[in-house]
Structures are given as structure tokens and as C-alpha cells.
């Protein structure tokens, strides 16, 4: 058994520890950036939804500001964000490198995307439902939680899945600031040293990770669609 593995994946068995470390780094980045990004993106998506023209808390200034900022950060390629946000990273996290240094740019890279996803998920709530809730005398907070969010759990789960998967893609670039992770591992060994088995192993791990995320998202979405 040992022998077969060594013959089939000569480099991977050699770099086994680094491989595991890369997986852990990716998971840590995904969890932290994803968690923080979820809170911000979710909040911003809701703010955009309720402050838009005709929304329940219509507010042109707030809407316009947030909308512009979202567009701004959406249009900056992640590889540029990674380096451009180094000073901010250093101020907030104490360092601009390693996994810690990658969290801030990952958040900035995924929040605008998730904000738009949340916004479009909530936009599927029919105006009629909101109007009905208003006619019953619900306050704006209740309309947000009991109508917008509650009636969009399916689309929100799909939006979260898409963002989590795209964030996984972003973490692959974090090697630029020395954050490690699977992307960095695959480039450093698989490409630079032409260790093909390492590239394949990384791809397989990522495919499994994406499949799991998709599976979770789909099952939540399905459970909440009637």
C-alpha cells in the first residue's frame, strides 16, 4: 500500500505535511474571511434593499453611497486588492503577510460580491408580500426579518454557496502575500517544480471542497422552498 502510494504520488508523499498545512491554511482563510464577509455582505445587501427607491426605509444618500462603494470594490481585481490593502491589513491585523495578512483583502474581495448576491436574492421577494406585511402594521425590522429574510432563505443559501465557492478561488491567490494555502502549494510545487501529482491532488481536494459547499447550500435551499 505504502509502496503504491509512493510510486503513484512520489512528491505528495514527500510533501505530506506541507499539503496538510496548505489545506488548513485554506480552511482558516475561508472560515475567517467567509464569516466576517458574511456578516458585512448580508448587512449591506439588506441596507441596499430597504433603502432603494420605493423601499421600506427609502434613503437615497445611504443607498447611493453604499451602491457606489460596492461597485468600486467590485471592479478592482483581487490581485491588486491584495497588495493595495497591505497598509490597512497591517493597521487592523498587525501584519500584512501570512494567513492573518490575507484576511482583510479576502473580506474586501468577497463582501461586494456577496452584497450583490444578497441584494438579488432579496429582490426575489415580491413587493406584494412586503405590502401585505406593511398593511398588517409590521415595523421595518419585522418586515426585514419575517418577510425579506425568512421568505428568501432558499435564494440566500444559494447566494452564500456561490460566494463561498468564489472565495475559495480567491484564497488560491493569497500566496502572493505569503499566506500559503492550496493555491500557493500547487503553484510552488506543482508548477514551479513540475510536480504534477501535487497539482492533481490539490485539484481533487478543491473539487471535493466545492462539492461539499454546493451540497450543503442546495439542501438548505431545498428544505426552505415550498
Amino acid at each position, binding site marked *: 500500500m505504502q509502496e503504491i502510494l509512493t510510486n503513484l504520488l512520489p512528491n505528495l508523499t514527500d510533501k505530506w505535511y506541507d499539503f496538510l498545512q496548505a489545506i488548513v491554511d485554506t480552511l482558516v482563510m475561508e472560515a475567517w474571511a467567509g464569516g466576517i464577509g458574511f456578516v458585512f455582505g448580508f448587512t449591506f445587501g439588506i441596507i441596499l434593499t430597504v433603502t432603494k427607491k420605493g423601499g421600506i426605509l427609502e434613503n437615497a444618500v445611504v443607498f447611493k453611497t453604499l451602491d457606489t462603494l460596492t461597485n468600486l470594490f467590485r471592479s478592482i481585481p483581487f490581485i491588486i486588492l491584495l497588495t493595495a490593502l497591505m497598509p490597512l491589513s497591517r493597521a487592523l491585523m498587525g501584519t500584512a503577510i501570512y494567513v492573518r495578512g490575507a484576511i482583510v483583502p479576502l473580506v474586501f474581495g468577497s463582501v461586494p460580491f456577496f452584497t450583490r448576491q444578497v441584494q438579488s436574492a432579496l429582490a426575489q421577494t415580491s413587493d406584494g408580500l412586503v405590502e401585505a406585511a406593511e*398593511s398588517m402594521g409590521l415595523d421595518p425590522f419585522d418586515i426585514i426579518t419575517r418577510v425579506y429574510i*425568512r421568505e428568501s432563505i432558499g435564494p440566500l443559501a444559494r447566494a452564500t454557496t456561490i460566494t463561498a465557492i468564489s472565495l475559495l478561488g480567491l484564497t488560491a491567490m493569497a500566496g502572493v502575500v505569503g499566506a500559503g494555502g492550496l493555491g500557493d502549494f500547487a503553484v510552488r510545487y506543482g508548477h514551479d517544480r513540475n510536480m504534477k501529482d501535487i497539482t492533481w491532488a490539490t485539484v481533487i481536494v478543491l473539487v471535493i471542497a466545492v462539492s461539499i459547499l454546493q451540497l450543503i447550500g442546495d439542501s438548505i435551499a431545498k428544505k426552505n422552498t415550498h
Partner: protein
Amino acid sequence: MIEIDNIVKTFSDGKDREVEALKNVSLTINDGDIYGIIGFSGAGKSTLVRCINLLGRPTSGSVRIDGKDITSLDAKHLREERKKIGMIFQHFNLMPSRTVFGNVAFPLKKSGLSKAEIQKKVRKLLEMVELSDRENAYPSELSGGQKQRVAIARALANDPKILLSDEATSALDPQTTGSILKLLKKLNEKLNITIVVITHEMDVIKQICNKVAVMEQGAVVESGDVFDVFANPKHPLTKDFIKTTSNLYKVEEMLNSNIAGVVPEKGEVLARLTYIQKEVSEPLISSVTQKFGILLNILLADVEIVSGSPIGGTVVKFNGESIRIDEAIQYLREKQVGVEVIKDARNPY
């Protein structure tokens, strides 16, 4: 009592142009009324009904409910006031992720009732709309009529004094429409709830309303008791609406397509007789026949009960001596019967 006083509502279309959706509309709706507001789409009736619970705020004018001007309330008090005004919609607007029970319980969350009390109340409401057996169904599993019944139960959850119905039967087939209207009528009688019905179908008005307002281009062109408006419509639009509900007005079409027996023979007069008084007790047609020695041939008849009184008429052909026919028509008019000569095939004098 709902007093709508001089309401104006303008929408700006974004390009400095303003559209006047409501032009100085005033209406008084009494407790226990089923007040119908009819008009074509775009007439402003939905905008008007949304001024009653301020889902849309009028640009000027006031809305008083039991003497209280609701346009001057702050957000919190307005929400309290809205709980006393139920509303149902054309597309039901049920929460798709909640069951029938969940939907009816939806407005009761902050009502201060305990879980057991809410359950009891929801069951009672579902019984009232005859849907007790569908408590655990999701809206997607219900028919249109059932969805509207759930919506009605939900609208009644906070024991409102007023129910606003915005085209509530417009998405339903005629049979289901009939059953929903019956339910509304029953609720009006049982709970003494005031109902404001928005519709574009005169049949709806005829079946359940006691008062009606006809709207066109943001203004009320005619209003009053349903019976009076039906018996004696003044505005052309009202007349058009009434024509859609009575087959007495099909005669012109029949005449145009030369249907045998409709076109008057030489010496005959084709006329429409309409009853415009509340008591039609005399056997008018037989007495005219006997009194004037002429023949009356009934082609069409349509008599219905509106607001508890019969209303309608007949399309007849008079046959007999020319002068006798004139006398008969004169006599009928004296008896408060509307006589409208459609085609006179007698020789001109």
C-alpha cells in the same frame, strides 16, 4: 366611519412631469357598508384604497377613521391603526414559506396573545373561512379560491373594523368569485365589518355592495346607493358598466346581426323597458295589453335582486295600432317604467 376628504395624489414620473392619480376625491363610507369602488385599470381606485391605510400617502387632503385624522399620525401610531384595517389583494400575497396556519398566525406575533390563544384564534378563523382541514398545507398546494380564503382569515386576525379588498376576485374564475363574495357578505353581516371593495366588474358590485362609487381618471364621477345607481345611472361610464351585467343590452347586437324575430316587422316598435322604482308589483305588461288592445311580445327579460330590490327590465316588441302604441308607452312612463325605443318600424305620420 371612513371620511375621505378632498384627496389629491400626484406621482412624479421622474422627468419633472407630474401625473395626477387622484383629483379631489371625497367619499364617506359608513360603518357596516360594503362600499364598491369601480373603474377601469388606471382609474385610480387602487391608489384611493391605499390612502385608507396609508400604504400610499395622499399629496393633500385628509382621511379620517372614526373621526381620527390618520394622515397626521406618526409611524408608530399609524402601524397600530393599520392593525385595525385588514387588507386582501388580487394576488393573495401569502407567505410561501409558511403553512396556512403560519400565514393566519403571522399578524398575531406581537399581539400579546399566548401560543395557545393564537392557536385557538387561528383555528376559529380557519373555520370561519371553511379551511380547517388545510391548516398544514403550504400556499403552493392551494387553489386560488383557497388562497384568498387564507388571506381573508389572515386579514381578520387582528379583529379589524375595516376590510379593504383590492381586486380580490379578479384572478379567480366566476364560480370561485361567487363563493368569495358570499364569504365577504357573510363576514359583513356576522362581524359587522365595513368592507371596501375595489373591482372592475359590475357583477361584484351588484352581488354584494350597498354603495358604489364609479371612478374615471382619478375622479369619482358618480356615487350612491347601488340600487339607485343601477336603476338610474347618470354618467356614461356607469351606463357602460351596467350594460356589461345585463343582457337587455344585447338586443342592439342582435339587431345588427339580423337575428330572426328581433328586427321589428312593419308597424312594430322595438323598445327596452326598465324598472326604475323599487316596487314592481303591478302586472304592467298584461295590463297594457288589455288596456290598449295591443300585443306585447317579450324578446328578452332580465330581472335581478340588487340590494334587496328587484331591478331589470324587458325588451319587447309592441304590435298594434300606431296611436295605441304611443298611448301605451305614455302610460308605462307614467308608471315610472323607463321606455327606450330602439327601433320604430311604424309609418311616419
